[in-house]
Structures are given as structure tokens and as C-alpha cells.
């Protein structure tokens, strides 16, 4: 790489990252997803210790109605949409714990950006938590890497 120092994860990561406490409920999670506009929330404990990742996809999937529910409610697409909304509302009090991926892939802030890029591509993930000694220090996304790397070449 060149000498401009953009070769470590900590140089390119996003520090201001969407975090959620491990004891939050799904409503809080949904609001956070909406506000922060990220695909995955970083879950932390009361001491900012890294607990895992909560993905918007998993939240949505919980609210999707199954065929029995749709048929029970009338069978139309409209019915299905209504259930989706109702179900979503009903889920709001559910703790996020069961949806948290509690041992995700992580990257070290001192790791080389190429390492992060490799794993993001190989495992088809978009966002990697950056963790140092058990503490969440940021996230690194494909976009972060593109911005940093292409700019330095």
C-alpha cells in the first residue's frame, strides 16, 4: 500500500455506529433501524461490551405472516398486509435476545483492510463489527472500504 496510512481497519471504520442495548425490545430496535439507516444493529451490554448483531432482516421475518394466518384472516393480500402490521405491533414488547446473532464474525481495528475486504466478500456480509478486547469500537462496511481504498490508489 502507499504511505498515507489508510491500510488498517481503524483508519476506515465508522465509529458512530448504531448500537442497541442487549435488554432492549423489538420496538426500540425497529426505531433504531429506521433512524440510523443501517442493515445491522450492534448489540452491546451496559458496559459497552460487544454482545452481537441484530439484523433488520431477522426482525422483518418475525413479523411476516404465514399462510395459515393469512387464510384465517380472509386470504387476501390486504389481509396479509394487515397481519404484518398487527404482528409487528404485537412484537414490539418482545426482547431482542432471541434474534441476536451472539457470536458473529468480527474484525480487529489493527487488522489490514484487505483482510476485512476478503471476509466481507467471501462470507457475503455487508457490515463487520470492529471489536477490541471485547469492546465495540466501530463497524466497517463494504462502502467504507470502497471509499477508503479506491481513494488511496
Amino acid at each position, binding site marked *: 500500500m502507499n504511505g498515507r496510512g489508510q491500510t488498517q481497519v481503524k483508519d476506515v471504520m465508522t465509529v458512530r455506529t448504531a448500537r442497541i442495548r442487549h435488554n432492549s425490545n423489538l420496538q426500540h430496535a425497529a426505531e433504531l433501524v429506521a433512524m440510523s439507516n443501517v442493515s445491522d444493529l450492534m448489540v452491546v451490554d451496559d458496559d459497552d461490551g460487544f454482545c452481537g448483531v441484530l439484523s433488520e432482516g431477522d426482525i422483518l421475518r418475525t413479523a411476516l405472516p404465514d*399462510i395459515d394466518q393469512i387464510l384465517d384472516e380472509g386470504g387476501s393480500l390486504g389481509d396479509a398486509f394487515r397481519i404484518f402490521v398487527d404482528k409487528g405491533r404485537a412484537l414490539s414488547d418482545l426482547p431482542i435476545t432471541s434474534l441476536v446473532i451472539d*457470536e458473529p464474525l468480527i474484525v480487529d481495528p489493527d487488522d489490514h483492510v484487505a483482510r476485512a475486504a476478503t471476509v466481507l466478500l467471501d462470507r457475503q456480509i455487508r457490515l463487520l463489527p470492529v471489536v477490541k478486547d471485547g469492546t465495540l469500537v466501530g463497524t466497517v462496511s463494504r462502502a467504507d472500504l470502497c471509499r477508503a481504498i479506491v481513494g488511496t490508489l
Partner: protein
Amino acid sequence: MVARFKTMVGETRALAKLVVEGGPGGTGSFPVVKHLTVIGRDTASADVLVEDPLVSRRHARIAWDGAGYVLEDLASTNGTTVNGEPLVGARRLEPGDRIGVGAISVVFEQGGGAVRPEPVPDDRATRALRIPQSFSSVPSRQVLDSVAATNARLGHENLGFLSEERGFTPATPPPLELPPAYAAWDEIAARLPELWRSITVRPALRDLPVLDAGEEALPDECLLRASVIISMLAHSYHRISAEPPRLPMPDGVQQPWEQISRRLDRLAPHLSYSDLILCNWKLKDPNCGDPFGLDNLELLVSTVDNQEENVLYLMQVEAHYEMGPLLGAIVRCQEAALRDDTEALKRDLISITEAIQQFGTKTFMALNPNPYSDTFVDPVVWAKTVAPFAVPIAEGTVGPSGVGAPAFHMLDTFFGRHAYDTHLGKEMLQMRSWYPQHWRDFFDALGEVSVADHVERIADPVLEGIYKEAAIAYAGDGGFLTQHKIKAYGYLDLAFKVGRSVTIGGFSGSFADRVWDLAVDELTRSHEERERALPRPGHPAAITEVELVNPDGDPDKTVTRVVFDVTGTGMRYAPGDRCAVLPENRPALVDRTLTALRATGSEEVILTGEWRDAVDLRVGHEGTTTLPLRTLLRFGHIRPVGRETAKILHAASHNGRLRRIIESRAEDQWELWDLLEMLTAAGFDPKRLWKVHPGQAEHICRVVPMESFRMYSISSTMDPQSLDGAEELTLTVGRLQYETDDTALSAAHHRFGTASSFLGSPAAVDGETRTDVSLRVVHPPRFGLPADPTTPIVMFAGGTGIAPFRSFVHERAAHDSGGENWLFVGSRTRHELLYRAELESAVAQGRLQVRAAFSRDPVEIRFEPEGDGGGFRFEPGEARHIGDEILRDDNAEMLWRMLRSRADGGEGAHFYVCGRTGFAGSVMTALEAVVDRFDEGPDDGREERVRSVLYRLVGEERYLQDIFTTYTGSHIDAATTIPASEVVVRNNPDDGYWMVIDGRVYDMNTFGHLHPGGFKIIQAYAGMDGTAAYRKVLHHVNPEVDSMLGMYELGVVRRLHFGQEWGTVVAPDGLRSMSLADAYRAWIRFLYRVVEMENALQQDYGLKDQTIIGDDDPTAFPPIKFQYLLETHDRFMVNYLAGTTGDALEDLWAVTSGFCTSDRDVRWMATELARIRDGEEADTIRRLSGEIQRRIDDIVERGADTDDPTAKLLREYCDLLHAEDRRYLAEVKAALRRGVMVFEELERDTIRSGGHRLMAAIEGVPRILADYHSRLLSGVVSLWLDHPT
């Protein structure tokens, strides 16, 4: 009758027959099945025999020309007519044509057309018309008859041995010598072992005079003996060395070989099955009671003449003699089918089953890899000295492999094998065209009639059951072919590791390819190919009675006698046989699981292929492709939760608690329903399991595997004379229940066993819920009563382990022939003395002695006679275990008498142990103590000597175990954990032998000697993970082996936790991420591979101390031994040295350096190794083999004896090579082990804290190679200095 008519190439030929009417011989019909049907008066050559002086000997013939049948007059004296008109030349026959021959008239019928035969309008109808036996007989009988006639006419059997009595073996013993003009052949044949010993086969054969083997010179009746000699000489010429001969085959061999081959109508000269086996024996004592027993047979021509060669070939001779009557039975079955004689068909099918079972349990057992057996065939010696010999010399020819055994062809054809698409299947078909004419005719004829079709048409369930038993005894699960495969695995595995990398079938390859696995996979595939033609295993039966047999016992440990009505199934069993039952789940559990799935049970589930196959075995569900969810759960394995199920559910739910459960291996604390409830409470949607598409990972068919057959010993007996089979079958079933605790990893529940609940509960006989159950009888190769009824038996029963002994006692009491019967029972209290009344009655009759120990009941048992009967009395005493009872003075003395063989002054009793793993272990320990008590030898080596008494007992098949485990809820984390690095050093006599199977570590030191497959195959997998091999031989589905192993469990392999740690490596396609867990797997796999090489090398060099030729002293060092040992070193160079420094090492370097550093060239290892390989030392080492070979050639040429200086030097060479080759592998292993230990110590911190140590471990490997070269070189130099030759 149902018959299929086929041409040689398999296309369907139109059905045709000749119908005769009138005449004193009556009416008959005769199927036209051959290509050529001759009508005439000649008893030898006519297919349709007409005893009429107006008929010529060969009068007319009917030939199939591909489109139809053509009638042709064979220049008969009185001519042939068709529909009254004289036949001129040939004429195509039409259905209804009436053929007139002499005084008779025959109507030709074809296809389904009903052509009524007309009365013979002839005034000569009163003349004799004899419908010969063959007239209403099946094609196979016609071939037998015509072969008999031909052989009688010719006066020899050169066209192939074939008879009803002797099967495929010669009717007269092969001649012992050739005419005097051929003395040179007899002489050199007798000298073959000596020529092998001194490696002088090639020069000796070059000196052989060229003798004429043409018709004029060599009489027909000597042709087969000449063929045996010459073809074995030819193979010896090639196979004496792994190096092909530089000079072509000498004329003295080649010319007669070609002449003989031509005269025998062979496609090309080759070593045939007749040459090597069927024609290559003589009887030691022709008047012996069992003339064709292994003990009374001797090879006529042998090469190395060691035990391995003798047993292997002669066992096959014995087998073909024993199976001789099988040929008759098979032909009679076809005849019975033709006549619609169901009773006769049943009788002959039963005799076929018995003959196959006899072969499997006796004759084939002689090929024994257990060194304590009299007929021990050492796999390593076999692999080196015998296996390569018969491999075909010329490409495109065939060899006398197992595929060549005609008995297999006969059984395959009889049982309707149609598919021959696998490698071995094709080989079998190819083999047919190389067979002698009589065999070819016979197999073609045999294929014309399908008994299976007949059985299906008759639709008699008993007949179907009997046919099924016969077919399964041969090719079914647990049948002869399965047994053959399991035994073959042990031999093939070692053959590829230490032999010359080829089999007769032609598999070859290197160590890394694991060709031995491929070869066995081929056997499996051809086995499956046969299985397709088989009826489904399993018979329907209903439970008719369930009776508590310990009413006063512990209510938590109830034992029931379960009776099945098997009338009309044709099922047969003998004492010691087992019964496999497909269990079902009780409705209450199914309901609870449906609730947990949030389902009603009526949901239709599309079955996966595996499920479809499994459901096929369920009575009433054959061929089903969907099942209602309720039924699926009834048939599925839903408790306890299996590991695979837990993993699938974790992948679908990401549930953290489930992950911890899996990591702690505590999934078996759960049943499916409560695990699902737990997941659902945490947000998982259980409906997904039955809503997703069948292909998806979490589909219910994958989450719920199908239940498998459970094995129980049969507690009843049946009348073996009954043609209709058993009417009733009794099992003894202990009800399994246990508690699980409320912990972080488990939930508190009272649990039940699936099968014992299913069988042992009264609901099973409740009229309304009574269901048909699928049963299957399994005949274990070892657990039957002794063949000689006067042999005493000693039985040890632990709890429900009395099950098989109930039938033993019945059987032995019913046929009182003097053999003593002892029964030792171990149970908790007197109330668990099962079948007490029956035992008392047997004791009262003087047919049984009972000894019992009650572990929780302080009483002594005593039998008190009373009139004709009597009963057990219990007096206050001590609570004792089975071991205490065995060691009681009077018992110990009796057992010592029973243990010793008759030759040693004992009774040679058979010992049977049936019980749980712990019970079986106690019995064995106590019997060892008995031996120890009476052993009078010196203290030196006492332990070893005592052990070997038991090992020999096993080797003589006098110690037979039926062990089972009863799952009682595992104890989480209770097992000792053992690191893999500790396992890998346990592969030698000093550190002992351990093996990993399915994550558990076993001590193989004792088990290895008890293993029916012998110690060497255990040793081959010692110090490593043997799971794959274990599964290949089906031990994992064979509960007895699994359970026996339980006695020797040391703990579980420590599982390492790498979390989601990952790294980046330079791969061939660029940068790749890799998990740390995968990096560890790369290390441990490489390490295990080196351990496997170490094991193979040890076996390979082990030949140093083994007999190679004849009955040489094992320590003798003939030139051939040098040759084999040099080949071992060559294999080391080609396979092990290259295998440990090639791609695998370079890949490991790429992974390790990628994880640990960012500044090392991924090519460093390759460059470093190339530098060493290109060095001068490496070059010299490579030329060393040539140097040693020259010295071997030198002693061979000079005929040097063992005191010759060069011979002495060679011995030292062998020791040097052995030591250095071994040391090299040991050092590589140590380096890899150091790396693995870093992973074990640091787990997820391996790279962060131990990366440098990992790097050091792998960087050291090139040095080991360089050091090996230097050490070997300096060793060689000092040998040269010591022996200036």
C-alpha cells in the same frame, strides 16, 4: 409356469413351445428356450428325445434366427413334415404348425396364441414315444443332463465342471501327475516355492524345455492339470518381482500356454479360476470323514506355500464343494416352479438359505484375520505374497478374483440380478464370456426361469417369506455379501497400504487417494446393484401377548415377554438369532410433538428420498411419497434429540442456549417437543419446519430422521423341520425410563425409551390400536449353539441378557445329547431372576445348572429337588456381583475345566455372554482371574499369558458376546476429555493403541485382540480417527460391535473452541478468508495422515519377522524377503516421503503463514523443499534402491546363503532403512503435533499468542527431510566401510 426367454445378449425372444399329444407317453409340452433345439433319437445330443426307430439320431432342428424360429431337417432318413407336407431344407415356423417326426406330431406354439394341439392322425401312433425326463424340464436341468452326457462321452471335463452333486467342482480329483514326457513341468511346479524363495523363477523358466501341448501329444484328460501348472508358471514369471521382466515370457511357458488355452476354447491364455482354485487341490486322506474340509485339502501347485496362500485358495475349494448341492437345489427350485409344486419349492429354498448361512458362518470364517485362529490369514503377508500373484498379466484378460467364483454367478442369476452397471458388475459380465462352455450354457439356462416371478405370481405369503429369507441370506442387509464386504475391507485396506497397489480387479493408486476406500465403495455399489432385485426385508407381524415377567421386581424396571404372531410369514430362526423391530412412537408423544410444532397432524409432508426408502420398510406404506405429519412423527426419531437434529435447529434459530447445549453435547437430554417449546418461547417459529420446501435444510424430514431397526435377542425356539416357518416369536424387553435434570442445558422430565415403550406396553395388544409391526430376523455370524451338541456351553446373562439363553436352554433340553449347560445370572434382586419357572424345570430335569448373583439382595440361591420337580430356594447370604460368583472356588474350578480345550485336557466349552457393556466387562475380568488362579507358569510374562488364553478363546470362536448398551440419560460433562495430541502418540506397543471413533477415545490394547477382524486392521488406525473406516464396515449400525467397544472407552476427544476467529490466506485463486477452525482441521488432518503412514510403515517392515515361504522360520532371511523389504522402502520414498513433503505440506504452509504473518512468501515451502530435493544427498538417496537391488541380484545369482558377506550387508541395509524411514515419520509427526498442541493450549487465541510457535513447527519440516537424507547417507557410508565388498 412363468419363464422368460432371452437370447444371449438379453433381448427378449418370443415365447415358444412344442406341444405333443397322443402316444403312450402321454401329452407333454416342451419350452423352446435354446438357440438350437435338436429333435432326434440320440440320448446325448437331442433336446427332444423321440424313441422311434423311424426317427434319425439327429433328425431335425429348430433354430432362432433373430426374427423367428426356423425348422430344418438334418438330412434325416425318413424326413420331416410340416402340416403334412414334406419339409425341404428349412422353413420358418408359424404358430400352430404341426411338425411330423417319425410317428409323432408336435404342434409349435408361439407367444400367447392359443393353438390347440391336434390329435396325431397317424396309424403308427401305437409306436413307442417316450417323453424323456428333459421333456418337461427346465433349461437348467437340460444343461445339467446334456453336460453329464457330454462328459461321459468325452471322458473328461475340459468343457467345464458341472454336476448336480458337485456343483462347479470336478467329479474326479485332479490328476497328481502328467505323462512322463511332461515330467519337466511336474518337477518345476514342485520346485516353485523354492524358486520364489531364492527369486530364481525367471532364469529357471528360461531353461524350461519347450514341450508340445497339442492334441496329438498331450491327452485331453491331462489338459487341465497342465493348464494349472503352466498358467501358474506364467504368473510366477511376472509376479516374482514388482519389476516387470525385461525378457518376454520364455517359449517353454508361452507356447504350451497358448496351445492349452486354444484347446480349452479360452479367449486368450490366462490364469483362470479353475487353474488357481477348482483344479488345484488334492485330498490328504481320501477316506477322511469330511474329505473336502480345509484340514484335508492340499494345494497341487503353490507359489509361496505359506498359510495365507493355502487357506485362501483351499477355503474356496471347500466352499465350492460345500455349495455343490446348492446347484442341485437351485435347479430343483426352478423345476418346482415349473410344476407349480409349492411344497418342493419351499423345501429347496430353505435348503438354499441354510447352505448360504452355513457358508457364511463356517467355511468363509476360515479366512480369519485373528492371529489366535488356526486358519489365520495375516493380511500383511497375504497382501504382499498372495494378493498380487493372480493379477492378470495381459491387458484385457481376466483373473481369478472373487468375481470369478462361479457360485456367485449362480446365486446372482438365481436371485434375478439384472443390473451389471457397476465396475464389479461389468467385470462379472465380462468374466462370463471367459468361462468354459458348460458354465456359460448353465448360466444362460438358469437365467431363463425366474423363480422370483413365480413366487410373486403364486402370492403365497409363506412362500414369499421363504424366498425373501433366501435372497436376503445371500445379498441382503447382514447377508453373506455384507459379511464378505466387511472382511474384504480389512484385507483390502492393508493390501493397498502394504501390498503392491493392485488387486486382481485392477484398482491401483497411491496412499493419498485412499484407494482401499474406493475399492470397498465399489463392493458397496455392486452390493446395492444386487439389492435392487431383492424383496424388501421385513415381515409383517402383530403383537399378541405382552406379559410382565418380573411382577415382583422394581416397578421402574419392568421386563416383559412380548409375543408376536408370525404365522404365514415364512420367517425362520435358530437359537442365538436376533430380531430387528422397527419401533413407533406412542400417540401421546406424537400429540405433544404436534402441539410443539403448532400443527394438527393432518398436514401432508412430501418425503425426501431417504424417508421414502425408510417408509418402504413399514408394512402398509410401501411406495409412499407423502405422509401426514402425524404418521411421520410416529415413524420418526423424536427422542432423544440427535446431534444432527440439534445442529439443524440451531442453524435455523441461532438460539444461544441451543448452541451451548450442542457444545456441551447435551442435546440428548432433550426430546424434540420440549426442545421446540424452548426455541418457540425464544421467538422461533416451529411451523417453518413443516412449511418449508422439502429441499430446505430445516425441513421436517431432515429435522426428524427415520427410526431405525432395534435389535433384540429372540427368546423362543421353532421347529426347524417346519416348512411353513415359525408361528410365534418371543422377545424379552426391558422397559427403559430415566430422568433428566433441570439445568441450564437440560429440562427436568421423566423420559422413556421409544422401542421398549412401543413393545412393552399393554396398549400394543389393545385390539383397536394393534398395528402390524415390521420384523426382520438377523442371523449373527457368531452366536449360535455349537455344531456338536455334546460340547458344553456356559452362559452368562446380565438382566434381560437372559433373552437368547431361554431359547438355548429350550433347544438343548429338547435334544438332550449330553452336553453340559451352565447358566450364570447376574441381576439386582431375586425378583429379577427372569423365566424362573422354566429354569427350575430345566434344572429339575438335570439339563441345566444355574448360578446367580444378586447385587442388591443379600441371598444365596440353591435348587431343592422335590419329586419330579423342585425349585430355587433363597437363603440369607451376601449381595454379590457376577464376578464374585464366577470366582467362587467350585465355580472357578468348573470354569477352568470348561475354558481349556479338549486337547489341553479341558472340556472346550463354548462361552456366551449377553448383557450390558459393564456386565460383559465384569465377566471377562473375572474369567481372566480364573485363568490366573490356575495358571502354573512362572510369574514372568504371567499377565500376557493369562490374557492370551482369553484371546485364543475368542480366536477359536468359543467366546461369543452379545452386548448391548441401554441409554440411561447421558451425564453431561462427566466424561474425561482427551486432547488429540495425546491420542496420536498411542500407536505403538510402548505407548499402547488408542483410537477415536465418533468423537470418543477407545483403548484398543485389549479390544484389538478380541476384534474378530484381527489386530492389524486396528493397528492400521491406531493413534488417529478411525470413524470413516469404522463406518465403512458398518460397525456403527451394528449395535454389538458398538456396545463391545463401550467396555474400552477412555473418554471423549477434547473439542476446541475457536469461536468465529478467522484469518486471510493466499489461495490459488487469490485472497481468501478462512475460519480458524478450518485451519485447525488442516493441521489435525495432516497429523492423522502421518500417523496412518506410520502405522502402515510399521506393518510393512513387520514382514521382517514373518514367514514368507512355506513353513520357514519367521526370522529366516531368504532373498525374497530382501526384495519385499526393499519394495517397502521404495513405497516409503514414493508415497510417504513425497506425501509428507508435497502439496499437502505446501497448502498447510499457505494457511499457517497466512494466519500468522503478512511477510512470508506463500511459495517458501515449495522452494525450500525443491532445493533439498535437487541436492546431491537427495539424489544419492534416490539411487540407493538401485544399489541395493544390484546386491540382491548378486546374492540371487550366486545362490549365496545367509552367511554370505553381501547377504549380511543387506540385512544391515534393511535395518538401517527401517530405522531411518521410521524416524523420519516420527519427526514429521512430532513437528505437526507441536503445532496441534498450540491450538489445544490457546484455542481462539492460537494466532494472537501462539502464531510464532505454529510457524516454528511447520518451518522445521524441510529440515527433517534434509536430516533424513544426511543420516541415511552417512549410515550407508559407514555400512560400506564396515563391509568392503
